[in-house]
């Protein structure tokens, strides 16, 4: 097992350190709170010669992603990062690397969307880009932000994958918080991430045409091929996480379980609030309640099998969404319900919306949320219709 050293690092610096150790060739980014510390740190690393990369200080996020697309097509290992509005401005371009199979790596410091203007965290930015065809994963702490960024390169650039990969870390909660974490030795990271060789580089010695025009006689076949290839990334993601665990001692899985062994009630969360949720589970366990926690690590491709396995023995699943789909409830809850619909045996599912725009959810919040869910199950059993409830709102 490779050891490394324990350091105190801000989440943003942890990401920058991963990009430095991965020896990225091109970074294109535009500053936006709360992602700024990542680009500032990377700028410093390049300015000090500690990372030999071209840092393209672009004029918008649209250009940031476009430059990454170009650089990736030209054979470079690339990186970009953004948040909230920046991710929305990038939206159009996000479909390009996934359709053209360019292994761009991006880190998102999750941020709520305007209006009203906010810079604080929720998952509205992520949920608006669910269908872009990127591999997407969530970090809950700075160690994971570092580890998953390294894994993102290894996964994305695998010649049997070649899909862009995105790591989500909650803005401010992780991006601006210093935590203890293990920083592996650089040579061990170099051993884990092989030199990047894109098989179809733009090269005058071997001309290729990329991004051609697809009328109805061929477009659906291109999309089918993309979906088949995307589905085939699942074993590669699992394999990379296994190898990462064997090398560095920290194992990741698509659906992470906490105190789920004999649980009848499960709470489902994503991102940094999962750690608070764990404390709530600990307290409720001490109170003798059969509760556990499920965290979605892998968001796309959606981990159907692992998720169904995780909930197969429970009676109630409580889903917390840090996003609202207006007129529809919580997007994660909708997806979870659809993932279980064709199972004959499935738990009751109750969804809540909370933590919007950086509103904290304390331990008590999670405990009362589970209590409210139990009341709602009774209402369901009485045949009443229930609505998605927003928690922590001042009346």
């Amino acid at each position: 097992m490779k050891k490394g050293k324990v350091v105190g690092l801000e989440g943003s610096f942890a990401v920058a350190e991963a990009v430095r150790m991965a020896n990225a060739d091109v970074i294109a980014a535009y500053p936006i709170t709360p992602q700024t510390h990542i680009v500032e740190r990377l700028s410093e690393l390049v300015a000090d010669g500690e990372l030999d990369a071209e840092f393209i200080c672009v004029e918008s996020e649209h250009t940031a992603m476009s430059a990454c697309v170009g650089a990736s097509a030209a054979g470079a290992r690339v990186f970009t990062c953004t948040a909230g509005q920046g991710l929305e401005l990038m939206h159009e371009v996000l479909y390009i690397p996934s359709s053209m199979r360019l292994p761009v790596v991006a880190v998102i410091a999750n941020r709520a969307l305007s209006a009203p203007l906010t810079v604080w965290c929720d998952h509205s930015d992520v949920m608006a880009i669910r269908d872009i065809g990127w591999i997407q994963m969530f970090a809950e702490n700075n160690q994971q932000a570092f580890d998953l960024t390294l894994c993102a390169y290894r996964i994305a650039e695998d010649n049997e994958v070649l899909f862009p990969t995105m790591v989500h870390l909650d803005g401010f909660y992780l991006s601006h918080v210093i935590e203890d974490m293990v920083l592996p030795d650089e040579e061990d990271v170099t051993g884990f991430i092989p030199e990047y060789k894109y098989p179809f580089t733009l090269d005058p010695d071997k001309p290729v045409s990329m991004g051609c025009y697809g009328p109805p006689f061929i477009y659906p076949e291109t999309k089918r091929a993309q979906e088949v290839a995307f589905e085939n990334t699942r074993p590669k993601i699992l394999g990379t996480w296994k190898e990462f665990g064997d090398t560095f001692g920290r194992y990741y899985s698509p659906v992470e379980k906490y105190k789920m062994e004999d649980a009848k009630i499960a709470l489902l969360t994503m991102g940094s609030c999962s750690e608070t949720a764990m404390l709530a589970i600990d307290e409720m366990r001490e109170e003798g309640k059969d509760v556990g926690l499920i965290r979605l690590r892998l968001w796309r491709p959606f981990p159907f099998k692992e998720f169904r396995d995780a909930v197969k023995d429970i009676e109630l699943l409580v889903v917390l969404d840090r996003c609202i789909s207006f007129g529809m409830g919580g997007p994660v809850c909708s997806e979870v319900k659809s993932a279980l619909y064709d199972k004959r045996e499935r738990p009751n599912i109750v969804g809540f919306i909370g933590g919007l725009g950086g509103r904290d959810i304390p331990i008590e919040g999670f405990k009362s949320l589970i209590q409210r869910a139990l009341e709602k199950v009774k209402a369901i059993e009485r045949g009443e219709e229930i609505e998605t409830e927003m928690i922590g709102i001042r009346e």
Partner: protein
Amino acid sequence: MEKEEEELFVPRLVTTEENFARGHRACIGCGEALAVRHVCKALGKNVIIVTATGCIEIISSLLPQTSWRVPWIHTLFENVAAVVSGIESAYKARVRKGKIPDKEVKFVGFAGDGATSDIGLQALSGAMERGHNFLYCCFDNEAYMNTGIQRSSSTPYGAWTTTAPVGKKSIGQATWKKNMPEIAVAHKIPYVATACPSYPFDLMDKVKKGAEIEGPAYIHIFSPCPTGWRYPTNLTIEMGRLAVEAGVFPLYEVINGEYRLSFDFPELKPVREYMKEQRRFRHLTDDIIEKIQARVEEEYFRLREKAGVK
């Protein structure tokens, strides 16, 4: 020149190598496809070309065929300069890190007038300001031709388009053409030029200069469009010549801020002569044509002064 003489002399002046292959789907008489062909002859093989969504992209890259014999990429409409920025930076980094040998590859962006002066202006401005080593060619056919002749900011005053239609309360395009080359000049880049496929040697000369120069280069290429301008398809070369001779589209270079006229016409042909065969102008009354004439003369002679022509 007799045909035999042509076959003897022309290959000595211009390469017969075609890197933009024939068989593409451009309209008959397309000035833009002709311009692209000339530009590709001048660029040669050692190049990576990025193209915006638009006529050139759709006529050249219908899956599973391609007209491009050089490495070529298209992604979106408004991001050509951004994609070029990424490719150029990737090349620089990979050469510096010893991953590839330096073969002095040229990086070139192709875009229409809409993709340049409207939706892609920000990305282009950013790339010019950052000083990437690239050549940007704007093929200006003065409207969104690919989507069906809608006006752009590069459409000339008084022209009919489908979104600047002629009506009881409209003369067609009610605004003056945006001066894109001057916007490029304002970025203080080392090379800006205008060109037209009616003057192929001048065009190819400028493309070679723009590609060789270190830093950003911008060439604005006037590309007559029979489909959108409503003139007979055999008059494309003539339309380009008349535009230049009437002063509507002067050919010039700005090298490190120094203006130089490529062709000077102390006596301009009347704009009416340029407009005559184009049905996009046929509704214009004498007073509007006079207004256009005055504006063309004023701008032409101001340009002449900048170029130091007495």
